[in-house]
């Protein structure tokens, strides 16, 4: 029996542990693994510290492998131990606390140390780097006690630190020795655009300043510069660069340069000792971005496992920076060196910039600012080294790969090696994603995300993940994949609606039967959709299926996380009365409602209501349901308008109430929110609504397709009308057009983006057509009743709100 070899990993960071992860997959039994980590934490994602600081993630979420992982994989972990000696004769490794471990092989993954400028005062309190969890904690702590922060370094890391400090509420000055930010990734044009954007976010810049000293007594109070000026700061963050941590290697007689010198198999000058990650220097380069380090780790793992590998040949890198809405991308050699030619587009109106750098007919570099959607593809083109001769302008203008020809898009993905990294943030390879698709049943980007973590961080690789999905899902089905409305069918919405209309189908069961559904009773996506389409097509005859409604629409209340519900009665146009308020208050007291809150839609919400109390509360309130749930009209927000407001040009309140009364209870493909503002100041925020009305002098502006949710979209102007009757005519026609044409679960914003504003305008152009749509929607509305009243009065419906009463034992077993 061969003895397992002892492998010691020095460093518990991303690169080293990733190499171990690969090794465990390839050859779990060959090594007895021990890991030493100087920090007191398990393996965490250092890159995401920026997100922790900026508020997008918390410390727990950034842990890649928790304590259990080490136990489960029989890895001996020593945290809080800094290795100080490697004895290559005795083959032992010793930590600063005296712990000694034998080894057969070592991986040094000591990472980098932040470069601390040797300034007078650098040892004062309040002067830190931005490297680890401890630094984050100091910054968060400082933000609670102090006001001003200074970041020295306007590179990638410095700007991310500055963004985080702004989020923490501090005043931030960024000091940079050069005239342009991120000079390692951006050219002057993009750097200036970035600076303007960041200044608009509140960051202040001190460019071309060379720091000479840190002022202050025991604690830093600011900086002094070579030109005689100064700046105040109670927290000084040094983000001027990193240096490979080669201390241990050097002391152990291993050859070092800037980093620990390694060959294509990550082997150092001493056999059996390897180095990987930021501390390693390969062909003269010590990388500071994660994708190359993960590639190194994969090669090292193969080598240690005895698996054939061509070795690591270096990486072409790309950077993607997202600083709160500012998208910046850079790849390859973006400087305009002799022998290269560049093509650029700078659009100050849209706030975008794009430059591609070409040499010998190949793409060698790119810089994008403002719109980085082409980033992943440009990067792939740079890496592949393929000739782009003759296609330079197409690439510059970002014509999609489908238009460039099938071969370049999917062909490139197909030709990619399995161990090539698709998701740089989480180091997910093509092979892992392919495995998730073909063997683990992942058939959507989110399934792949949960299974492999690809696309879970910055999302820049999403187009490639989608491409792989097409590639592999198509293969395993043996035929091209067609997108149906859900996994139960390959038919899309238009096909289904056409068939329902043609064959006069009138139940979800019939539709699923006749149209050959894979699952006889459908799923939570298609049943409600079919129920909607059936009711939309035939409002008079179709009997709505309660069991095919989503939960909230079934119980006519909003289910909360703990199984209680919330009750929102109708308050038309946001206008109430003392009598109604008293009624709501009394009901809230009588039923001991835990929370009464105003909603964004200008009405009151009773939260924490027990399901069995719902019918009783509705009965006592004796108010119609506010439909704060479900795919229907939610509210019509209003601002005061000409009733009382000195600026109001029209009576927005009366218009709003009229709209809300007209359209309440309407079944729509997705929720619909309206608003009416009394003047162009738009205090009712009508321009982020599905249908928004803005009063102007002598008329009303009608706006459509707005959305104030996850993806904000401002409305498009549909038209301007003069009278309230015209507002009703156009709103009725628009809503009915939306109902008849959009996909279930598609908001008006998405629908309009898909079909185009012109299409909608054309469809509503003729008055005849508008009136026809209006009459259809009125027919539908005339058939609705208040659900609360209906449930209160119908025992068959009311029974569903109470638990079954006392069970009776039949026999003891």
């Amino acid at each position: 029996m061969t003895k397992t070899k002892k492998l010691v990993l020095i460093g518990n960071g991303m690169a080293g542990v990733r190499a171990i992860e690969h090794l465990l997959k390839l050859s779990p039994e060959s090594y007895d693994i021990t890991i030493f980590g100087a920090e007191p934490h398990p393996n965490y994602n250092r890159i995401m510290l920026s997100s922790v600081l900026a508020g997008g993630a918390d410390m727990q979420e950034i842990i890649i492998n928790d304590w259990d992982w080490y136990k489960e994989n029989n890895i001996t972990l020593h945290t809080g131990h800094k290795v100080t000696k490697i004895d290559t004769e005795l083959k032992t490794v010793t930590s600063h606390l005296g712990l000694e471990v034998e080894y057969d092989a070592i991986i040094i993954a000591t990472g980098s140390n932040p470069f601390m400028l040797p300034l007078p005062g650098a040892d004062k309190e309040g002067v830190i780097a931005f490297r680890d969890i401890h630094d984050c904690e100091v910054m968060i702590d400082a933000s609670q006690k102090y006001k001003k922060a200074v970041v020295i370094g306007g590179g990638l890391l410095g700007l991310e630190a500055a963004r985080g400090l702004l989020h923490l509420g501090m005043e931030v000055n960024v000091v940079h020795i050069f005239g342009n930010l991120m000079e390692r990734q951006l050219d002057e044009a993009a750097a200036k655009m970035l600076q303007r954007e960041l200044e608009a976010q509140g960051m202040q810049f001190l460019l071309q300043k060379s720091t000479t000293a840190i002022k202050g007594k025991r604690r830093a109070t600011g900086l002094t510069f070579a030109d005689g000026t100064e700046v105040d700061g109670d927290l000084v963050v040094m983000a001027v660069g990193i240096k490979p941590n080669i201390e241990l290697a050097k002391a152990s007689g291993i050859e070092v340069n800037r980093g620990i010198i390694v060959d294509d198999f990550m082997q150092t000058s001493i056999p059996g000792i390897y180095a990987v990650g930021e501390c390693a220097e390969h062909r003269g380069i010590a990388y500071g971005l994660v994708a190359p380090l993960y590639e190194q780790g994969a090669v090292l793992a193969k080598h240690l496992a005895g698996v054939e590998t061509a070795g690591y040949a270096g990486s072409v890198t790309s950077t993607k920076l997202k600083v709160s809405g500012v998208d910046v991308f850079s790849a390859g050699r973006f400087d305009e060196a002799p022998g290269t030619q560049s093509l650029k587009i700078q659009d100050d109106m849209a706030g975008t910039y794009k430059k591609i750098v070409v040499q010998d007919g190949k793409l060698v570099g790119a810089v994008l600012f403002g719109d980085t959607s082409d980033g992943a593809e440009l990067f792939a083109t740079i890496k592949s080294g393929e000739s782009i001769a003759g296609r330079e302008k197409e690439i510059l203008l970002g014509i999609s790969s489908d238009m460039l020809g099938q071969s370049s898009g999917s062909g490139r993905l197909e030709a990619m090696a399995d161990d090539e990294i698709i998701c740089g943030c989480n180091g997910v390879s093509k092979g892992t994603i392919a495995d998730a698709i073909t063997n683990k049943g992942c058939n959507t980007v989110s399934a792949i995300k949960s299974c492999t973590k690809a696309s879970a961080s910055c999302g820049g690789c999403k187009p490639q993940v989608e491409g792989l999905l097409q590639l592999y899902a198509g293969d395993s089905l043996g035929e091209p994949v067609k997108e149906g409305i859900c996994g139960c069918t390959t038919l899309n919405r238009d096909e289904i609606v056409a068939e329902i209309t043609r064959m006069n189908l009138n139940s979800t069961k019939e539709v699923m039967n006749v149209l050959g559904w894979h699952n006889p009773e459908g799923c939570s996506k298609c049943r409600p959709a079919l129920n909607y389409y059936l009711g939309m097509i035939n409002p008079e005859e179709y009997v709505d299926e309660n069991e095919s409604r989503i939960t909230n629409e079934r119980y006519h209340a909003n289910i909360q996380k703990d199984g209680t519900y919330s009750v929102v009665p109708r308050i038309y146009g946001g206008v109430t009365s003392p009598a109604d308020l008293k009624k709501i208050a009394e009901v809230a007291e009588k039923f001991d409602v835990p929370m009464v809150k105003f909603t964004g839609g200008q009405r009151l919400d009773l939260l924490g209501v027990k399901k069995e109390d719902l019918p009783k509360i509705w009965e006592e309130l004796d108010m119609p349901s506010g439909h704060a749930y479900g795919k229907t009209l939610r509210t019509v927000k209003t601002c005061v308008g000409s009733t009382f407001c000195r600026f109001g040009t029209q009576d927005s309140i009366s218009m709003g109430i009229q709209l809300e009364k007209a359209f309440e209870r309407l079944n729509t493909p997705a929720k619909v929110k309206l608003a009416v503002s009394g003047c162009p100041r738009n205090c009712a925020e009508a321009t982020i609504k599905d249908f928004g009305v803005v009063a102007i002098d002598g008329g009303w502006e009608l706006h459509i397709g707005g959305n104030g949710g996850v993806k904000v979209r401002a409305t498009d102007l549909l038209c301007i009308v003069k009278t309230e009757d015209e507002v009703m005519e156009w709103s009725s026609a628009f809503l009915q057009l939306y109902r008849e044409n959009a996909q279930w679960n598609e908001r008006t914003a998405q629908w309009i983006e898909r079909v185009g504003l012109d299409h909608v305008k054309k469809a509503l152009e003729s008055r005849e057509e508008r009136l026809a749509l209006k009459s259809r929607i009125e027919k539908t509305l005339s058939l609705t009743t208040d659900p609360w009243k209906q449930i209160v009065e119908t025992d068959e419906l009311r029974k569903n709100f109470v638990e079954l009463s006392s069970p009776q034992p039949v026999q003891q077993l």
Partner: protein
Amino acid sequence: MTTTKLFVANLSDIDVKGSRRITIKDIEVAVFRLSDDSVLAVENRCPHKNGLLSEGMVCGTDVHCPLHDWKIDLRSGKVHEPDEGCINTFETEVDRESGAIYVTV
């Protein structure tokens, strides 16, 4: 632990493709009536974040949790892939003539 067989409801008390809840021995149980009038009973708690399965949508022999749409097989109590988890199920019996539903807990 002794199990008890109890009468909980009549078929007519539960909507087709619907569910009612009942508390037995301090456990909240969700009783489902499927389209073929068979009855399945499970612990009324999604292994994800404790959503009430009785409020979810029934499709065949599966129920979708109303909170985050996890799909659970009512026969075995197991959560469908890609999610993981399992809940307790209870034996049921339906008297075809009287419509009486019995659950064993």
